[in-house]
């Protein structure tokens, strides 16, 4: 057991972890943060996406002990003060069915439009390539991002 501390959605948290605990498990089972989901558990599906120091990562492939001293932000952080414009756009277009992939999709899309406010369709597809959806929801997701980010 090692005591670690890291910022979780803006708040400094302390806890004891074993080296073999993944960040995904610790977030979900020990810290009550339920937006990251376990899909494939090997980094392919993107359902477990969280932000580590501002970049999207796969929390199933990171050991909790590694984030000691770092900053984690999850979907819960994005909607702290209400829905973000991106979330509103997704809601209006009804882009998700079951919603399992939604937290990962929203984080990946948020990272994209933060770095690139007016992405092309290709850039959107590229940015979301690692977020799999099994309800065939890709087209409305891409359309919603395009409409939100189009130049006036």
């Amino acid at each position: 057991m090692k005591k670690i501390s890291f910022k979780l959605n803006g708040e400094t948290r302390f806890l004891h972890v074993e080296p073999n605990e993944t960040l995904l498990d610790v977030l979900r089972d020990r810290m009550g943060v339920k937006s990251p989901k376990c899909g494939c558990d090997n980094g392919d599906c993107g359902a477990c996406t969280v932000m580590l120091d501002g970049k999207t990562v796969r929390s199933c492939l990171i050991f909790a002990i590694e984030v000691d001293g770092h900053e984690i932000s999850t979907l819960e952080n994005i909607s702290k003060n209400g829905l973000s414009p991106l979330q509103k756009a997704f809601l209006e277009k009804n882009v998700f069915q079951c919603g399992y992939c939604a937290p990962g999709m929203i984080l990946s899309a948020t990272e994209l439009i933060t770095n690139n406010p007016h992405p092309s369709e290709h850039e959107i597809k590229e940015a979301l390539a690692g977020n799999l959806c099994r309800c065939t929801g890709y087209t409305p997701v891409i359309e919603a991002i395009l409409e939100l980010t189009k130049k006036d």
Partner: protein
Amino acid sequence: MAIPYEFAYERPETAEQAIKLLGKYGKNARILAGGTDLANQMKQGFRVPEILIDIKNIKEWEVIKMVNNELHIGSLVTFNDLRKSQLIREKLNILFEAAGLVASTGVRNRATMVGNICSAVACMDSAAPLLVHEAVIHTMSIDGERAIPIQQWFIDNRKTAIQDNELVTHVSIPIPEKKYAGAYQKMMRYSGEDLSQSNVGVLVLSDNKYHVAFGSVGPIPKRSLKIENLLNTKGISKETIEEAKAMIETVIAPITDVRATKEYRMHMTKVMFERALKSAVERFKQPKLITQ
């Protein structure tokens, strides 16, 4: 899912501390950088280290820099670091191109290029670009440092020339003095996140010199001096391209697996070789190195 067994974890602050730890544990230790391969291998029980040595606090290994006429890429440089680097964009367009095709953004934010060549899975994307640029891999251990040319690095699928007590500090890539341009082709089942079924790297150098390497079509990535000699002596024409494509049959040894059949890999590698060659030649003709 947690890893179903216990192991220790250390995060040294300096290179000296890291090699000391590695010297102590040897083959029972694994170096942890991005961990995108290692965590999976541990979940599957393919690797069962007693201790993980996390090197991410060793800041000197995060750097991409020019040292004289060599470009140095530290062992902590991720694929997205490569994509964001102006130096890589300007000097190593083939690596820039390949880095953008590795998995997905979320993986590229974490996975390192050095981790890629240390895992040495046959379908890796960094090998062909590093082979055509004649990169050198620099290792460190309590016994000292070694510089291993990439031609001697890959031994077998998932096996490299690294010793149990060594870690990689950086990769150095000599930048040609005269004009050059590279191109990378990767075949995937779909555009987006996928592993390569076959990949080809071509580097065109001044004085009609060519470097050619293939990946994912044999246990280790392979540079072909035979094909290079043909192109170097006969130049580029419709006939030599056909001759080189026929030669590929004797150079690569693809297998059939879940991603493609060996026949399909063989056929497509020829097609991709031609595309990569033509694209590299086209870029070579431009006044400035083109990057995607």
